[in-house]
């Protein structure tokens, strides 16, 4: 009996919350430029992990650290990814400022703590309900990108300069 009461109370609160949210949405709309709530951000990260698939957690990159592979992946990232993620992986781009949910800062633990396989799968398949597209199955390039994403926290000014030759950044346009 008591559990029914608690369940009923929880449902009531949920209904009230949904009604309030609906009223706000009707009154003001909802913009992709707003910052997500903490719960939404948590959900987005959780969905990102789910999208990769449980088997991806144990996958490890088959390629070792190689300066040429890293350089090629760096240029690939500049050419294909930096328009949203920024050359340094920070996500500070005009496009990302308007994405909901925004692309995360790839240098931070929330991305770096993903396994190689999870990052690989996110690149390959994208993440539904976000702006992250699935780039398809080119294993060699995708694993190279994983290597580069792991390198992002250690990116040097020289490397950043190389990337800016491919993907220029206008400081005045950065959010």
């Amino acid at each position, binding site marked *: 009996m008591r559990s029914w009461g608690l369940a009923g109370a929880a449902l009531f609160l949920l209904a009230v919350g949904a009604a309030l949210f609906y009223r706000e949405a009707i009154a003001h709309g909802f913009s992709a430029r707003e910052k997500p709530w903490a719960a939404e951000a948590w959900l987005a990260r959780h969905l990102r992990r789910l999208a990769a698939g449980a088997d991806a957690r144990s996958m490890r990159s088959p390629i070792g650290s190689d*300066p040429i592979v890293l*350089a090629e992946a760096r240029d690939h990232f500049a050419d294909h990814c930096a328009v949203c993620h920024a050359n340094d992986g920070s996500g500070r781009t005009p496009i990302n400022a308007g994405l909901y949910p925004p692309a995360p800062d790839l240098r931070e633990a929330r991305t770096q703590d993903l396994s190689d396989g999870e990052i690989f799968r996110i690149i390959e398949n994208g993440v*539904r309900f976000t702006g992250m597209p699935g*780039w398809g199955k080119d294993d060699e390039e995708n694993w190279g990108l994983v290597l580069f994403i792991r390198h992002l926290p250690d990116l040097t000014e020289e490397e950043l300069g190389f990337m800016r030759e491919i993907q220029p950044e206008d400081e005045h346009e950065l959010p």
Partner: protein
Amino acid sequence: MLVLFVGSTALAHEGKHTGTSVHGIVVSLSGETLKVKTENAEIAVTLTDKTKVRSGKDAVPRARLIAGTHVDVRGSKLPGGGFAAREVVIEAEAESSPGDPAEH
């Protein structure tokens, strides 16, 4: 809590990324190192197993990279000044004969 629906589409890697390129004259080829003289410097270009060499649309052997040959090298800059070649294109109209380095 609503998430804006954006249907993700699978995009094939649209060909290969372009990277950067250097343009110059072959100085020498030794093993996997191709030295190329550009307007500003002499660059050591690393040829890998995957480096393609072509003249026009035709694949050609690396032996064609002789001193004096005008080339367009596409690939990635390496930290410290080197260059890793994904493709070396011999510029047919400026290809020089052996022992006859052309002025650039």
